């Protein structure tokens, strides 16, 4: 019964020839070539990659594993030696038979120097330390040293390396070169040019990854200034990745600027919900308030990037008008606050009293696999007609999917939605119109905007609406259930390519809101008589046994970056 579970859609790369190098005395075998970050073609392995494999940290600014190498900051200078060759082109040996190493009289930048067989890399010598100190001192001569008001403080490479290699006092007595401050670089970014260390990461990202050759360095020497073309806004849907990439506080997000000191943020692993790509993210929150999303590396999904529209789509979580009460309503004539227990009991009673085939469910493809699965269990028992709402817009070539639902595949795999999302909505509307459908459960959608208008809703005996923010449907519902944002619960989504990814809870739900899965668990137990699980782990594992495409998956086995399943064609 179990379909094969593929962790990675790609075949394993062919075995690469290795060669041996020593990093600070530790001998390791490293691949002779590594894939180029842009083309994927094999290119010679560099010293910094060998050091990373040897778990040796080499300080660096301009180098980034996902960008083309620039080699401009010089922070990664190391010393090295290679096996000495005699006039006969044979290796010269030490008396003990080991190869004699000829130490290079000059250092090399580890980020751009290929390794060679027998090479020895030294990262802890007094010379290397002196070079790091020297490079850092030069990088700081014109720097404004305004850490107390800098957004990058706490996650700044200048600060970190200054702790390791900085001078206690400045020897620079000359006047500093002043550069533009608070440059409005684009709709989402403010640039402080005095903090920029000219590493060109942002330039390379926007040119080579985002495909928008928008940034450059103007002027010369100590007047070098990072800039967009005068009068042209830096505005593509990926600009905020440059804020993450900037090793210092030069590029800042207008949204996050001066909002919170980063060291107060609690970081939670999560997934973006704004399209079917499901970029992996870290949610930064403090005292139950979400302050930012940042991309989290997952090479099977989003590399190290995310789009600006997804990144900034979090304000609704903290919206003032969130639904916070469980309500029983008599539409048009007010209502009252009730408890979850009462709601579960009354709704279960109504469902059990309903004639099979008279119940319909509209669930959102923004809900988790587990919630959709529980709803599918109800649907099975009640012989309910079900569907979700499609959200198709225009995608791009990098990450953004045309499908703006995070879990259309989950909706299909659990059987809640037909192959063509939304194709049952009309049938549901017709059923209500004809009076054959008397009960409607709506989860996370405003059906009045999708063909089931207020006039139809008024005909229902029972309308249950579980929602996060109020809308027309919740207004007309007999029962309103306050729902949770993904940031307030745990669960999984199945992305557009079939990657099942889990997300963790970052903040507490608002008011009486509680994870939909918990309430649905009680409802399913009351209607089907079989609880089936006691925790999100148990629920997931139960679902994985029941849904063929998920067979073999476990909550724990998903790890932090998910597992790709084979989607039924």
């Amino acid at each position: 019964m179990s379909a094969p579970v593929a962790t990675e859609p790609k075949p394993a790369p062919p075995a690469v020839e290795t060669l041996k190098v020593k990093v600070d005395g530790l001998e390791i075998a490293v691949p002779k070539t590594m894939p180029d970050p842009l083309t994927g073609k094999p290119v010679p392995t560099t010293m910094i990659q060998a050091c990373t494999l040897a778990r040796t940290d080499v300080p660096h600014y301009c180098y980034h594993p996902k960008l083309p190498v620039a080699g401009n900051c010089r922070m990664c200078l190391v010393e090295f030696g290679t096996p000495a060759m005699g006039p006969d082109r044979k290796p010269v040996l030490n008396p003990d038979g080991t190869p004699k190493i000829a130490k290079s009289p000059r250092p090399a930048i580890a980020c751009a120097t290929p390794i060679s067989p027998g090479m020895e890399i030294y990262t802890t010598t007094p010379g290397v330390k002196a070079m790091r100190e020297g490079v850092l001192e030069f990088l700081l001569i014109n720097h404004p040293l305004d850490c107390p008001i800098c957004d990058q403080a706490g996650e700044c490479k200048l600060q970190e390396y200054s702790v390791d290699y900085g001078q206690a006092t400045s020897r620079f007595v000359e006047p500093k070169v002043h550069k533009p401050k608070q440059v409005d670089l684009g709709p989402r970014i403010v640039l402080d040019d005095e903090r920029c260390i000219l590493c060109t990461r942002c330039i390379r990202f926007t040119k080579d990854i985002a495909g928008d050759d928008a940034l450059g360095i103007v002027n010369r020497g100590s007047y070098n200034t990072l800039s967009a073309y005068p009068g042209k806004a830096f505005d593509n849907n990926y600009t905020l990745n440059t804020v993450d990439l900037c090793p210092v506080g030069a590029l800042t997000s207008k949204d996050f600027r001066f909002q919170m000191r980063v060291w107060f943020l609690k970081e939670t692993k999560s997934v973006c919900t704004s399209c079917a790509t499901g970029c992996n993210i870290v949610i930064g929150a403090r005292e139950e308030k979400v302050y930012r999303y940042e991309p989290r590396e997952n090479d099977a999904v989003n590399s190290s990037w995310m789009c600006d529209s997804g990144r900034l789509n979090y304000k609704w979580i903290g919206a003032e008008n969130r639904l916070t009460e469980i309500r029983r309503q008599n539409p048009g004539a007010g209502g009252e606050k009730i408890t979850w227990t009462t709601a579960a009991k009354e709704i279960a009673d109504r469902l059990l009293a309903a004639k099979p085939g008279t119940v319909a469910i509209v669930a959102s493809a923004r809900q988790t696999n587990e919630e959709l699965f529980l709803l599918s269990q109800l649907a099975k028992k009640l012989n309910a007609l079900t569907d979700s709402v499609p959200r198709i817009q225009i995608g791009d070539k990098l990450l953004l999917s045309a499908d703006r639902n995070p879990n259309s595949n989950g909706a299909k795999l659990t059987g809640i939605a037909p192959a063509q999302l939304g194709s049952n909505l009309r049938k549901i509307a017709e059923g209500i119109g004809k009076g054959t459908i008397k009960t409607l459960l709506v989860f996370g959608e405003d059906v009045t905007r999708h063909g089931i208008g207020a006039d139809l809703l008024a005909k229902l005996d029972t309308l249950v609406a579980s929602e996060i923010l109020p809308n027309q449907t919740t207004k007309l519902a007999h029962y309103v259930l306050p729902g949770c944002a993904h940031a307030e619960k745990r669960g999984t989504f199945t992305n557009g390519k079939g990657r099942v990814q889990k997300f963790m809870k970052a903040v507490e739900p608002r008011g009486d809101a509680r994870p939909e899965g918990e309430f649905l668990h009680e409802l399913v137990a009351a209607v089907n008589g079989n609880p089936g699980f006691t925790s999100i782990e148990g629920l997931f594992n139960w679902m994985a046994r029941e849904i063929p495409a998920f067979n073999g998956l476990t909550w724990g086995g998903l790890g932090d970056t998910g597992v790709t399943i084979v989607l039924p064609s």
Partner: protein
Amino acid sequence: MAFSVPANLEAEITELISHYPQKRSASLMILHAVQEHFGWISQEAVEWIAARLELQPINVYELVTFYPMFRREPAGKHVVKVCRTLSCALGGSHELHGHVCQKLGLDAHAHGLQTTADGKFSVEFVECLASCGTAPVMMCNEDFHQAVTAAKADEILGKCA
């Protein structure tokens, strides 16, 4: 007013581009040609060149701002260049530059090309003019002057009509 390039300059640029396997390699030569023709390189010119070379304007703008000999504003009628590099600096070129600026009412400490309000003179403090043995050296338009004293500078400026 839309930026336009006369036919002969257009032909020269087409010719320049043909010299290189990649269009963008012609950038510097085109910038020289454009400055030669107009006397300076406007933002419209930068955009025109970028479009011609299938580049983004920022790529051309980087070059224009990197090389001090490219002007982003029109220069005065007479352009004075004083050498600031080592031999001339030792030979008193900073004093000479200061003197010239003071005489013309310009700020000697400002960065880049400085032009008098009446548009008659521009002064630039430039790198080596390749006559290091006869420091300090100064150029006035296309004329070269060696071992320039303050008095000699006054005389040179005085001859400019």
